[in-house]
């Protein structure tokens, strides 16, 4: 929020007194209804971009984004989707005009740059193509009061980043401003959890989205892994004896290692399988693609612990290089 000094304003058309409007660059004259732009020296130009997408379209885009993915059938069904939220987020806009090759004849080039002027947890504004979004539809002078009636309008809280120097060109003009870009937030509740999608309000592209994974997908894997281990543990003991004898025929030391190592590997695969089937997963997507991520998996689980245990045991058998390094 700025500490702008209040100034008595009057309409240039009818001379009527104008009420001040905070955070606004556009107001209507209360006497003659003329649309008036208010420009204050020293303050950046404030504009907003009208969304090209409605709330229903935002929900439809979100549904289309997850179509074909293994998500539960009830996900994004009518009734589980909350009213989409339209958010206007401020971006610092800087347009630098520079001259290229001034000796061969000046060529003026505009280079715009954008940076988010606010941070909103859960809304990855850095993924928004602000240059495209800012020119997607007609710009309007910011009328915060009007926007606030249908959307959440965030104030700029972040400083504009420093722009890097342009090599081979001389900057002749630099314009700084703030532009409010529309973003849709679509939220859906499923099985007591909350999933959201953030969409560019001008193009409808998904900036970030999460969805639950259809949990029945993992059931065939669970059956497969369980039967693999049923086979390992259920096969006659004599087969194990033959396997060990075969190891020792190859090499006595190798046989010893394989005799100990085979159950270890079997145990590790068992742990891996258990780890794979026991955690829940969700889809995380953006413009680059969709990934599968575990939602309730700690940083280290049984497979990692067993793997680390193997390495620790190997180090202990070989003499710990760490300790030797410490000694040296």
């Amino acid at each position, binding site marked *: *929020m700025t*500490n*702008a*000094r*209040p100034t008595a304003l009057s309409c240039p058309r009818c001379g009527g007194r104008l*009420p*001040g*409007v*905070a*955070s606004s660059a556009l107001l209507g004259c209360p006497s003659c209804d003329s649309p008036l732009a208010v420009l204050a020296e020293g303050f950046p130009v404030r504009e907003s971009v009208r969304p090209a997408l409605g709330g229903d379209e935002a929900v439809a885009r979100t549904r289309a984004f997850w179509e074909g993915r293994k998500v*539960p059938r*009830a996900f994004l069904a009518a009734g589980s989707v909350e009213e989409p*939220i339209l*958010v206007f987020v401020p971006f610092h806009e800087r347009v630098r005009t520079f001259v290229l090759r001034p000796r061969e004849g000046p060529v003026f080039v505009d280079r715009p740059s954008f940076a988010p002027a606010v941070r*909103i*947890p*859960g*809304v990855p504004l850095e993924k928004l193509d602000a240059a495209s979004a800012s020119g997607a539809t007609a710009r309007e002078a910011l009328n*915060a*009061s009007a926007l*606030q*009636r249908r959307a*959440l*309008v*965030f*104030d700029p809280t972040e400083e504009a980043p420093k722009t890097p120097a342009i090599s081979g060109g001389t900057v002749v003009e630099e314009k700084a401003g703030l532009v409010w870009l529309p973003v849709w*937030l679509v*939220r859906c509740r*499923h*099985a*007591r*959890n*909350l999933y*959201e999608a953030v969409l560019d309000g001008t193009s409808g592209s998904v900036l970030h989205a999460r969805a639950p994974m259809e*949990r*029945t997908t993992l*059931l*065939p894997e*669970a*059956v497969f892994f*369980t*039967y693999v*281990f*049923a*086979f390992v*543990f*259920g*096969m*006659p003991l004599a087969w194990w004896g033959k396997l060990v004898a075969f190891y020792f025929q190859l090499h006595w030391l190798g046989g010893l290692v394989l005799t100990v190592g085979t159950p270890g590997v079997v145990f590790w695969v068992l742990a891996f399988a258990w780890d794979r*089937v*026991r955690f*829940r997963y*969700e889809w995380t997507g953006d413009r680059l693609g969709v990934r599968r991520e*575990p*939602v*309730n*998996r*700690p*940083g280290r689980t049984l497979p990692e612990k067993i793997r680390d245990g193997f390495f620790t045991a190997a180090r202990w058998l070989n003499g710990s290089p760490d300790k030797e390094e410490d000694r040296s």
Partner: protein
Amino acid sequence: MTAEEHVCPRCGIRFDADEEGVFATCPACGSLLHLGDEAEIAHQRLVPVLDEAAVLGRLARWLRDREVLADPKEVATRLLWFPFWLLPGDALVPAAPLLASNLGAFRAPAGDRVAFREGEAGPAEIVPASVPPAAIVDDEATRRAARLLHVPFREVRFRLWGHDYTVWFDAATGQALDFDLPPTSERRLDVTYALLLLALFAAGVYGVRTLFGGTAAPGWVGAAVLAGAAGVFLAVAFALIRLTESR
């Protein structure tokens, strides 16, 4: 009178008043303001009563209610003041952008209300009001009756399963405002699932042993047990997952 910074008691906008006399007009909402000592008493704030230890207890209870059974890591708390428009009937509307997911269920907290003065808020962050009443209500009478209420919140940030979460607890009554929900643990489903896998494993071992002649039963019985157990497991697990999702 020299230019001085004032806070509009109605809409919370800060402004410099350089008008002559003891009255000024708010540049945001147009209210006529008296610039005397009592200029800011129309703002109200709730008195915070929950300290940090109590809030951590609330967090534990909130996680338990959501069936989140893991321990949160890197827990950090801070106090902040968030402005709400208090409308007739004790309806609360945020006076600044707020993306809490359960805002609709948030009620005006009970508690002692005192005059709001910025200096008395301590080092806590004060979120400025930026949404004028005109943007939230059309009715002129309701708009005039709207009063700004600064609600103290204890913001709790924590890390769980590799993700960051933020919850606000109002420091007067402990109501939670969440911004992103940690996933439920569903321990019962996990335990049932594990038991099912164990049963499948037992059936699998029996089936394999029978298949290789390790039991008195003929080999085809082993194959039938393997196929039947897999079918039963899939059907029960499928039904269990659907049941959990419908809760």
